[in-house]
């Protein structure tokens, strides 16, 4: 699985870990995140903006 990073603030979405606080279970593929997904930390970058690491 892969991880995706917010280019503004560095928030990392690791598919293996998901994001418990935000309610994304471990193993959630980045593609399955809602289309209007905004970075949970800065809210000024969106799904399309995230970079694969």
């Amino acid at each position, binding site marked *: 699985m892969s991880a995706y990073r917010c280019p503004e603030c560095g928030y990392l979405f690791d598919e293996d870990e998901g994001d418990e606080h935000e*309610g994304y279970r471990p193993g959630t593929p980045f593609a399955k995140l809602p289309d209007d997904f*905004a970075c949970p930390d800065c809210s000024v970058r969106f799904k399309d903006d995230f970079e694969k690491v």
Partner: protein
Amino acid sequence: MKGYTATLPGGEAIYYVDRKRYLWTLSVLYPLQPFIGIWLHAETGNQAWLLLPIFLGYVVNPLLDWVLGEDENNPPEEVLLKLDRDPFYRILTYLVVPLHFVSLIGAAWWAGTQSLSWWAFLGLAAVAGITSGLGINTGHELGHKKSKIERRLAKIVLAVPVYGHFWIEHNRGHHRDVSTPEDPASSRMGESIYRFATREIPGAFKRAWAIEKERLERRDKSAWDMNNQILQSMSLSLVLQVGLLLAFGWKMIPFLLVHNVLAWWQLTSANYVEHYGLLRLKDDKGRYERCQPHHSWNSNHVFSNLVLFHLERHSDHHAHPLRRYQSLRHFDNLPTLPSGYFGAYLLAWIPPLWFRVMDKALLALPHVNHDLTRVNIEPAKRAAIVQKYGRRPGESS
């Protein structure tokens, strides 16, 4: 004074000293202002002293901004990271949290135990409210950060003004939607602050609740679960305010009512002046452009920035929401408020005056250039605004 070393791209070594380092303690001490009035009242027996912080806030503060002027200096790019990570600045924001509780409890104690004339009583409640409005500012600085401790402190300090929903609303709602017609916390051209308040106060709460509810649903929890971060902060508010009621009796009902409303009004005033009329444009896919520095009104006025943790450097804040207060930068050619926030609030509270000054400034911005399609306009005022400012066909800029 502590400084930072760095090497410029050309190889030259620099040593940077932040001249404001210790001056930021003003943001920590300013919330103690009710005690100046209480002390002078106790010393002289004259109740009018209780109102002194109102005079300090709205007369002395704008005057100091005017006299001391603006500061456009930025720390060099090369030391920004070191400055941002220096724990000294962070600790100041931790220290102010308990002081907000001390101020409210102290003012409530004085109002509840002294025999005051009605005007002095209400004046002290107003002073307490204005001061707790500063607590929203403290919660704002803390709530933008990633660390657990800072987020926890944000929820705690926001319990004082009973605004626990603010950091969710602000971070996840306002920053996403800022300077668009969809944002209840961005004011529109032609919208008075009073009309704005009726849209902003309920709108912000609804948006925060919706965002938190959605998050809890993803976790298969009810919106009323104690994981709801709004409820966490609000329960602390309840304990605090019921505690004051039990300690000082029925007098606390009008006191807290005035306190709460005035605290919220501080935030409404700040929100009102921060993005007035500014609009992010949509791209060909119908998505709003990224928030850029020219989507916020900025102010570099020295004094009011020093008591507000640099909140008025709002353009950089919206472009980079996690940047800490000490490293927020000035940019050239920004939308610029005619004064610091306290003076700007005075202007905002008198709508005809505000429109007169700000509509002209808004339309003259380089990225607007009198083009009303680049302005966030109050729908009810659109026709009148187009009539007054619209360009006739064939007229060029």
